[in-house]
């Protein structure tokens, strides 16, 4: 395996994006809205198409803006369906994002059929090509890396600035209202942050695997700690670990193992984003099992009593 500049940039970009994703992820997870990320990831399609129709290009901020607006619209619709007609939250989300996606698909086919928004490209993502082009065109820092850094920086600033509001809103929106934390504004800011992150990330990692990076590292961290600040820090670390490991394994190990197990010849590198989410999944399962085993024979210390009591419930 010969390492070169492309690999370095791929690794950096993947890590930046993975870390950017967990920041909204922590709060989505805690406010039980994990699937919202999944919804946003689909719902951005009409925004992208409209952005394209307005601007006429495929690589402009118009697409990004359109996508973010569509993503936020999806959450607005979901909330509206839930409040107005009493539709159960999961179903409300399902209705709004499938409908938005369908609208996007129809608009694309009827109005912008010449644009190649390949489903496989949107849904699977391709970090390799995103980086490769820039390197071929003359080096420097690739756009994807800049965007990853931008997303991470914005999310860090947002979470740092609104940490108190986010905490209150996530755990007790009614209380947030009484102390002036403006839960609705905070909610929509969080949604905007999720949409922005999704859109930036899915160019590189695909719209569905974004969800793995948003939800799984915070979920792993939530198995390990109950403190919010620790949770955020731990999620960032886990995301970094998963991104690096996932990337390294994707260089050959994963593909070779799979094809070797089936008795096929060796294959080259496999999809990086897929590799990262597989690693996330493995870490999750291992953590959960370890935690279960540790809880099975709890040492009789006062600190552990709380946990074992919960376990018996």
């Amino acid at each position, binding site marked *: 395996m010969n390492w070169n500049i492309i690999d370095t940039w791929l690794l950096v970009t993947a890590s930046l994006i993975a870390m950017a994703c967990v920041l909204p992820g922590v709060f989505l997870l805690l406010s039980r809205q994990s699937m919202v990320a999944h919804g946003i990831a689909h719902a951005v399609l009409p925004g992208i198409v409209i952005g394209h129709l307005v601007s006429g290009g495929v690589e402009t901020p118009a697409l990004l803006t359109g996508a973010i607006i569509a993503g936020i619209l999806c959450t607005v619709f979901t909330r509206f369906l839930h409040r107005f007609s009493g539709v159960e939250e999961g179903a409300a989300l399902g209705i709004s994002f499938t*409908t938005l996606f*369908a609208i996007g698909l129809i608009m694309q086919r009827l109005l912008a059929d010449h644009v190649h928004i390949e489903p496989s490209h949107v849904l699977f993502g391709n970090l390799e090509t995103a980086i490769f082009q820039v390197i071929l065109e003359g080096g420097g820092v690739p756009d994807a890396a800049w965007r990853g850094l931008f997303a991470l920086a914005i999310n860090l600033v947002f979470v740092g600035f609104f940490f108190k509001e986010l905490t209150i809103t996530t755990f007790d929106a009614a209380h947030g209202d009484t102390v002036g934390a403006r839960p609705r504004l905070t909610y929509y800011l969080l949604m905007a942050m999720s949409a922005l992150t999704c859109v930036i990330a899915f160019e590189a990692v695909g719209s569905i695997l974004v969800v793995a990076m948003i939800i799984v590292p915070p979920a792993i961290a939530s198995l390990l700690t109950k403190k919010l600040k620790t949770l955020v820090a731990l999620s960032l670390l886990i995301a970094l670990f998963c991104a690096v490991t996932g990337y390294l394994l994707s260089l050959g190990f994963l593909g070779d193992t799979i094809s070797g197990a089936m008795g*096929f010849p060796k294959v080259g590198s496999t999809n990086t984003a897929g590799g990262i989410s597989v690693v996330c999944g493995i870490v999750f399962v291992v953590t959960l099992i370890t935690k279960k085993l540790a809880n099975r024979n709890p040492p009789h210390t006062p600190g552990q009593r709380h946990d074992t009591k919960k376990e018996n419930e």
Partner: protein
Amino acid sequence: MNSPDSWILASSWLDRLIEAVRSPSYNLKVIYLGVTSLGLAAGVCGCFLLFRKRSLLSDTIGHSTLPGVCIAFLLYARWGSGGKSFIALMIGALITGWLSVRAVQWIKNNSKIKEDAALAIPLTVLYGLGVVLLSVVQDSNLNLQGSSGLEYYLFGMVASMIQAEAIMLAVVSLGALTVISLFFKELNCLSFDEDFVASQGLPHRWLDEVLMLTCLTVTIAGLQTVGLLMIMAAFIIPPATARLWTDSMPWTLAIAGFVGATGALIGAIASAVIFRLPAGAAIILASALLFGFSMLFGSRKGWVVRQLKVARLEKRLSENQLLRDLFDRLEAQQKVRLLAGLDFSSDLARVSLPVHDILKDRDWSQRKERSVARSLSRQNLLKFKRGDFVRLTTQGLERAIEVARTHRLTELYLIEHADVAPARVHQYVEKIEEITGPEIASDIHQLFSNELEQALIPAEPHRGGDTS
């Protein structure tokens, strides 16, 4: 429609619509059969997912089939004859789909992670695995025949549906409907009270498994033909639509099935009529439109019905308020005695009362005063006299007494049992009056039977002191 071109276009659309509805081509008939039966079965199965707040499970199942499809493809290429074997891919999809259902359950049972994340984690992780496997499958070193386009397995192509697929969809749907009607009672219980089912000695785990397998089979049968997103929408939108119309379980299933089938049919027809309109998306949109229509006009939670209910309630409350005020005035004039043996056959009811004067403490508009009084007079509860004077009829007096009694008993109850300050109790009762009726009043009367003795109506508790 000013240029002749658009005329021709419009008329050709109309022609195509008439043709698509009245004499569809063979291909179209196949598509109609396939999507309609799928819409029907998915709508019905989706109800059970919705009741258990698991609507998005079909999403998880759908995405989790990708690794199964790829593994099946690889195994079939290694040990079978290679290529895209429909049966092999379907079995692979079934296995990982089932795995994802178990994974959701496992996460929920073994950690404090909530439903949403328990659905999202298997979805993305298995999908990620699928993407990795896909890049193995499509690697040039392997050079497997038929590997390109395997990812389109998830997206489906309604337009290219063949007869065998349509028949398979019809059979799967029929099977799913049979299973559901066989276990209808048990599944019904399971949806609302799992513990009850367990306590009745029914095999609830096994039932759950049957239900999940049914949903799984329908999902996977649909994936290949209509695509992931449409199958998800078919599971989610029709049941949610049905809930806007009805409360009852059998009706929910029937309406969901109907909406699913109709939405699918409309979408399929639309895509046949409009050039380049993707059928899967058209079907989702048609179902969404049916949902939007139901949001407005649904008979249970539709906007119109709710508005009407509110208006009716408001009207009834205003009527009661007017009657009570009239009664208070009669009482103040000592025309009605409070004790038992109340005699309203005599000339009590003949007293004329000035409506406007009586209502001066309520900030009602004149129009409202008049319309409320008119509505009471239509019910023959009061009669208009000269000017704005009215007179209660015998029935009117009876109802006024009932209303005043309920009101005062509720006030009394709140003062004695809920520690509401007497000065504020009046406002409280005005607010909660919509839920207190004669039954509650008689309960409260029982409660105070000692103190009230034979009094039919207690004095207004918040004014105090004039009963004695």
